[in-house]
């Protein structure tokens, strides 16, 4: 039965099961969880709220997945969100229309991404350090743009991006879904995704075999910047103002967490965009669930910490090799196969993750 599933679906099965378990827990603490109602021409309900509120992390996770697939990491996305929100707010406050403001903000995001990519690919700086520079300095730059105040705006068009709705669905959800689908088509219907994975597994080997690794690395950081810019615009539009201090604060960590929950290894290589997006939804479901259950939100961080720990244990080489040895048919057991990669490794996680994360 398992084998008849589409391989792509089978890969994200553990994440889907986790999501269902988390949602199930939410129903236990809040029986009306799945209730969706229609009011003022749009849908309301906890599920819609999760899809809506999870937009920033989901968007960041798209870019972060590609960056992590190249064995990199982008710590600056939170600060880039602040910069781009500030740029958009400053643009509409200066009298330009929505399209100009959005384009300016997206360009700012891409510029930040290109800077990170330049540091990583051309100057060969470790990704953590290279993006740390913008993470530290970025909020200062955002403060310079907003001139130290929370820059508020009343532009209807821009606010629509954060809290409007289209076809009864909230705009932020449509934006991240569209972005995710576009990126997935871009990397999976062309060879791009394969090349990104090749660069992540071995930059030198793939460069020697003709892949222009450095160009790809710069490109994925630029995409990450673009995603961060979009998330920044949504967050600014949602609160009708650009808050340079708090916009996107610590979201880089949530985004990395979403990617890791989604089953992409931090060591680069194979990635799954759908998994990361589900990861983002899992995080948001936990947040919403804790709020709904009346638990103090303080427990949020502790629960997140334990989830990371469980995932770390599952992904760790020791546990992986033990599981691999158990799963291996005897006649193949002395084969030199890769334990981490491959489809069978993925559904192995399914059973473990189900047991590990059910409580």
């Amino acid at each position, binding site marked *: 039965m398992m084998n008849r599933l589409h391989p792509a679906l089978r890969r994200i099965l553990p994440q889907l099961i986790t999501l269902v378990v988390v949602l199930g827990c939410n129903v236990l603490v809040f029986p009306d969880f799945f209730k969706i109602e229609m009011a003022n021409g749009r849908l309301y309900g906890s599920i819609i709220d999760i899809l809506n509120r999870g937009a920033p992390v989901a968007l960041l996770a798209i870019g972060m997945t590609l960056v992590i697939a190249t064995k990199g990491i982008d710590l600056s996305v939170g600060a880039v969100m602040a910069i781009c929100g500030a740029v958009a707010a400053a643009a509409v406050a200066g009298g330009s229309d929505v399209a100009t403001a959005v384009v300016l903000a997206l360009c700012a995001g891409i510029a930040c991404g290109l800077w990170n990519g330049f540091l990583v690919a051309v100057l060969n700086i470790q990704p953590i350090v*290279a993006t740390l520079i913008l993470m530290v300095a970025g909020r*200062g730059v955002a403060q310079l743009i907003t001139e130290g105040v929370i820059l508020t705006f009343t532009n209807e068009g821009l606010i629509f991006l954060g809290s409007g709705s289209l076809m009864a669905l909230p705009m932020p959800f449509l934006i991240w879904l569209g972005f995710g689908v576009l990126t997935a088509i871009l990397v999976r219907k062309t060879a791009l995704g394969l090349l990104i994975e090749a660069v992540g597994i071995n930059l030198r080997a793939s460069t020697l075999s003709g892949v222009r690794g450095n160009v790809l690395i710069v490109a994925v950081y630029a995409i990450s910047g673009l995603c961060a810019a979009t998330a920044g615009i949504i967050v600014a539009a949602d609160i009708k103002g650009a808050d*340079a201090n708090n916009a996107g604060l610590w979201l880089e960590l949530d985004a990395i967490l979403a990617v*890791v929950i989604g089953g992409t290894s931090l060591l680069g290589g194979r990635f799954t965009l759908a998994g990361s997006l589900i990861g983002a939804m899992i995080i948001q479901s936990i947040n919403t669930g804790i709020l709904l259950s009346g638990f103090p939100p303080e427990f949020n961080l502790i629960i997140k*910490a334990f989830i*990371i720990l469980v995932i*770390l244990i599952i992904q760790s080489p*020791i546990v992986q090799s033990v599981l691999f040895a158990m799963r291996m048919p005897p006649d193949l057991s002395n084969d030199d196969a890769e334990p981490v990669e491959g489809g069978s490794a993925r559904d192995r996680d399914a059973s473990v993750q189900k047991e590990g994360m059910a409580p």
Partner: protein
Amino acid sequence: MNPRYLPLLATIAIFILAYALCYSQYPNMLSTRVVGNLLTDNAYLGIAAIGMTFVILTGGIDLSIGSVIAFTGVFIAVLLANTSMHPMSVFALALLISTCFGALMGGIIHTLEMPPFIVTLAGMFLARGMAFVLSTESIPITHDFYDTLQDVFFRVPGKGRLTLIGIIMIVTVIIGVVLAHRTRFGSYVYALGGGLPAAKLMGVPVARTTVCVYALSGFMAGLSGIVFSMYTSAGYSLAAVGVELDAIAAVVIGGTLLTGGSGFMIGTLIGVLIMGLIQTYIIFDGTLSSWWTKIVIGGLLFTFILLQRGLVWVTSRARI
């Protein structure tokens, strides 16, 4: 000259140059009072950065220290407010917890062979969450012993004050220097940062060193939390957000290689002082906004990373 010393020399040169620049505009900058305050205001950061230097020397990273500082502060404040325990025993307990916390992270990093980045990220969430669970409000610390501690200072000529927490930082730096450059543990730390396979072949006890380094970082974060609680006279679970980044920045500005294996404790102290100097200058100036601090630190980070890349490039060329 050994190129290893170049980053350190560059750091010292920048510090002296920056100080001279500040002095030329505001002659009061060189007064013992300003120098004393520079040490007092940056004591908690300096102590945390010393622990971070050890971690970075092994090629690791510890993102949890800001949260551990906040947790220690809240823990001390809650215990002092609700029990009649003496602050000294509370300090001991807090240091024990933070050290065990660090050791636990080190153990996980070693046994699970996972990147320190993500393990300490979990530690960061956990410590901050525990602080939130203890209290979400800022708890003032009012204890006679705290008043006594805060009144301990040496008068230096020129009305300057060398406070207790400033002294604690200097002592920590001295211990850090001795530990890193004069003990077997220090050599292990450098060896580990130089390359894991080589370190293993040389007989470095990798497991013990890894656990010890993160335990040391946890201990320093706990000590930093104690100092921070003396500095602010309160425990607040949202305090010290982002201190880990400041500490990493100070270590890098201090000339320590982020890939591990090369660096000096004294450089970290100067890195912390450079960051403090920027802040002091902004306060003296009065018209500049404090967010310039972040931008200047970002710029300095970039400069130093470039310098290090250049050095690595030059030395690797020399070897060929």
